[in-house]
């Protein structure tokens, strides 16, 4: 009986759905997190009688045909790359990107990763690093005895050192964009890697055409909408329940079948 396996594909799909929603809710307060959505597609159809099949020599056709579906599959879990809200932190090394673009981060093995999470800090050597101590590229070193650091919308980093009232430029933040940012590979710790699907990285200065601007003292919050997620969770749970009802109905029918030959 096909209904059993069809309902199983439905349960599997809804389970993936719930997992994706759970991950979104768990990351509601993760800086720069982008919500994900599971996308479903119907499975192959078996053509018992193709629609439009000829039913007589007189040119009559079947209006509907018989196409039996085999259930559902998860086609993709994609990231929604809309802008998250900016929340004020007052920390000079917290920077948010308003608009498109990622910060480039050098991983421990020397390769590049990209992030939207601008909650940076300083290394013991005074370099701008992520919370995991990875260097922000291009490298920016804040001189010792710095009193204030300002980062403007174009990403220019200025430091005022004790004994000198004129701020000096100590570095320039860069942004990287991709033809298809949804195609980036998330590796955890808020980092993304370039893939075949994302296309090649294109570096630029914040504020240039097609790049976002920098907001110092702000962090980009997750773009997860809790109301949306909870409603999606409820409908996913109900859909799972319905599929399990189909399993028990199919089971009931099979029980009736086996009882036929008995007594």
């Amino acid at each position, binding site marked *: *009986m096909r209904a059993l396996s069809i309902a199983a594909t439905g349960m599997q*799909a809804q389970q993936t759905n719930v997992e994706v929603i759970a991950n979104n809710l768990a990351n509601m307060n993760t800086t720069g997190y982008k919500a994900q959505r599971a996308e479903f597609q*119907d499975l192959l159809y078996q053509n018992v009688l193709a*629609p*439009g099949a000829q039913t007589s020599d007189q040119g009559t056709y079947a209006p*509907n045909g018989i196409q039996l579906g085999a259930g559902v599959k998860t086609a993709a879990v994609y990231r929604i790359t809309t802008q998250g809200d900016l929340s004020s932190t007052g920390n000079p090394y917290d920077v948010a990107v308003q608009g498109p673009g990622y910060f480039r981060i050098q991983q421990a093995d020397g390769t590049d990763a990209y992030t939207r999470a601008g909650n940076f800090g300083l290394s013991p050597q005074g370099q701008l690093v992520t919370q995991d101590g990875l260097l922000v590229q291009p490298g920016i070193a804040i001189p010792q005895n710095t009193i204030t650091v300002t980062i403007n919308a174009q990403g220019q980093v200025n430091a005022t050192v004790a004994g000198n009232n004129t701020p000096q430029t100590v570095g320039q933040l860069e942004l990287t964009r991709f033809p298809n940012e949804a195609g980036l590979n998330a590796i955890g710790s808020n980092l993304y890697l370039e893939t075949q699907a994302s296309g090649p990285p294109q570096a630029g200065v914040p504020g240039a*055409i097609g790049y976002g601007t920098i907001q110092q003292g702000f962090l980009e919050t997750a773009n997860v909408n809790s109301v949306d997620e909870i409603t999606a969770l409820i409908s996913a749970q109900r859909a799972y329940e319905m599929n399990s009802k189909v399993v028990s109905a199919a089971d009931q*029918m099979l029980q009736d079948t086996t009882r*036929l030959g008995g007594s």
Partner: protein
Amino acid sequence: MDNSLLVSLSQQLASFRAMDVIANNIANVGTPGFKREAAKFEEYVAHVRPSEDQKGIQTVSFVKDAGIQRDLSQGSMEHTGATFDLAINGKGYFAIQTPQGVRYTRDGHFSLDADGNMVTSGGQPLLGDGGPIAITPDDADVQFGLDGTISATVNGLGTQLGKLRVVDFSNERLLVKQGANLYTAPPSQTPVTAVDATVQQGMLEGSNVSPVIEISHMVEVMRAYEATASLSASQEELLRNAVDKLGQMPN
């Protein structure tokens, strides 16, 4: 074998088919653009020999598959807010280029590939009036008009990028489902530009599966199956009794 058992059998096979179709509807309750289906059955009349006390030709009606009818009503519109999520309101399909030829879909979830082309989750390009639709990173604020016109702001100036190909068919029931939310058009159906369709950006058309209807159909099918099963059981009982009674040797 007795006709009543065969009639029951035809009904039971039909119930299995109906259950499979309901299961597929329920499994696809969250599939964008999915159209629910209903199994339709018809009577198959067979002529049988009259029994002893009957006159003329007698008939027996079996159940037979007539077809699976697609419900083409509009699915619910779900707001996603994503730039490349499009929903068609009204009669129409998006055209998709696949290696096997042009296919049609109502699933409007698209994203960009590495070259900036708008593609389905399967990576197949969406077709506009002039082939695949390419969006460059310089195209800010991409907008889709109700008629499918694509525009963007490039260097601060509004620019038209092209127009979506939204097509319609004289009889969309003849489109063949091929899975992955795609339909194939048979040679008899030539796509024409849809007139009765508007494109909505940031929305997805959900499935038009209604849980209440499916669950009540499911219960109905299950009970009908149960009833037929008990009918077969009593028929079997009758047969056994007949064999028992008739087989007894008179003393």
